[in-house]
């Protein structure tokens, strides 16, 4: 498992793309929003939490198909499936690598972009926390979606159609935590529920993703 994790990280850092792309996409989406809704600071300040969460979610989506597609094409996925490690573990390691490559940088970069949108000062810590808690769930759900569509050529659009509805609960609780923080309210409830969703998803989704991969490798 550790070897798979390290291998995926190396591939993401070295083989051009993966790592910086999601971050750049996040930046561009957030910069495009003021062009769309107008430059009034008050409006941007109000919608900043939602924009940042939606943009982070889309950035996460962007690199999902890389999780399994490349390994499926060059034949290393069947090898991983027959390796002594359970396939569930491989899925978990790959999702974790995806999270380190996209989720963690997104959470770290979010405050800088929140600054651009004039977000309320009190919400910065909650923004980073909610993204740090929520993005593992995004990666794991995304890994399931990627496993589902791995056998389909040009399955990228289908992947987003399948995965985005699954992201709704995470988005609702993540963004609402930041909104509540911006309004000066307590954020414990949404953050706790978000944490619960992440824990359940990380515990159960590898089983579903591995089952789906086995079907695709049949």
């Amino acid at each position, binding site marked *: 498992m550790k070897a798979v994790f390290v291998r995926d990280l190396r591939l993401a850092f070295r083989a051009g793309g993966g790592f910086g792309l999601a971050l750049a996409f996040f930046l561009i989406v957030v910069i495009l929003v003021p062009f769309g809704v107008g430059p009034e600071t008050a409006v941007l300040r109000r919608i900043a939490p939602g924009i940042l969460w939606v943009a982070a979610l889309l950035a996460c989506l962007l690199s999902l198909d890389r999780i399994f597609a490349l390994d499926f094409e060059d034949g290393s996925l069947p090898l991983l499936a027959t390796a002594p490690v359970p396939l569930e573990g491989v899925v978990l390691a790959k999702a974790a690598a995806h999270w380190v490559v996209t989720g963690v940088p997104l959470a770290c970069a979010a405050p800088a972009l929140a600054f651009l949108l004039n977000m309320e000062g009190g919400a910065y810590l909650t923004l980073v926390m909610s993204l740090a808690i929520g993005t593992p769930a995004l990666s794991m759900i995304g890994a*399931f979606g990627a496993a*589902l*569509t791995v*056998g*389909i050529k040009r*399955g990228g659009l*289908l992947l987003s*159609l*399948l995965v*985005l*509805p*699954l992201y*709704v*609960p995470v988005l*609702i*609780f993540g963004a*609402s935590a930041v909104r509540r923080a911006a309004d000066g309210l307590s954020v414990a409830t*949404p953050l706790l*529920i978000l944490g619960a*969703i992440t824990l359940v998803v990380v515990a159960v*989704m590898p089983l*579903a993703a591995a*089952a*789906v991969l086995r*079907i*695709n490798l*049949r």
Partner: protein
Amino acid sequence: MSIWEYANPKKFTATVTPIIPWAFGIGLGLLVVGLIWGFFFTPAENRQGESVKIIYLHVPSAFLAINAWVMMLVASLIWVIRRHHVSALAAKAAAPVGMVMTVIALATGALWGQATWGTWWVWDPRLTSFLILFLFYLGYLALWEAIPDPDTAADLTAIMCIVGSVFAFLSRYAAIYWAQGLHQDASLSLDAEENVSDVFWQPLVLCLVAFGVLFVALVLLRTRTEIAKRRTLALQARQRRAEVRV
């Protein structure tokens, strides 16, 4: 009678073929009676006026939109656990029907909302949950379309249906946390003394039963068609192999 007998597609087709025209006839008959009764022989409601009559389409379609998904979930579980081939095809057959029901519920709801709330659409938890349900139907059908091999497609869509059910359920409660709604509480519950005033209730029950029977008829018909399609594909494949050998 056990459902396992009908895992044999031939037996299934033979059994449902005589049922289908009856189910269509009874469903359509009940629907016509229910709608005419509801539209022309019930009074206008005190505050909503004539717009209340949308209920005869809105409630049955919403009821079926959810229950079609539940049926797909059960059929998918039966397929995944016991490899009941007809069950997998029944799940596939129910999906477009359920999706159309979702669209009818959303459309009639928008018309009703315009008449009573003064707006076509609000981001109310119920309305939003239905929109998300529509997306799930869309993804489910798209996944079926995208995979050429029927058994792989059945397996993958079944697991997608099971996982999707959990998330659809979760989204529904997340949406309640997320927004306050304009929509009233459930119109139908078994434990309530009186759900809707009796004048409206009787034709409504008739319409509900009619929608249910029509749903069964459509699903049986579509399942039979799917079986015939699978058979055709198998025969074509066999013929191609035979030609290659010659």
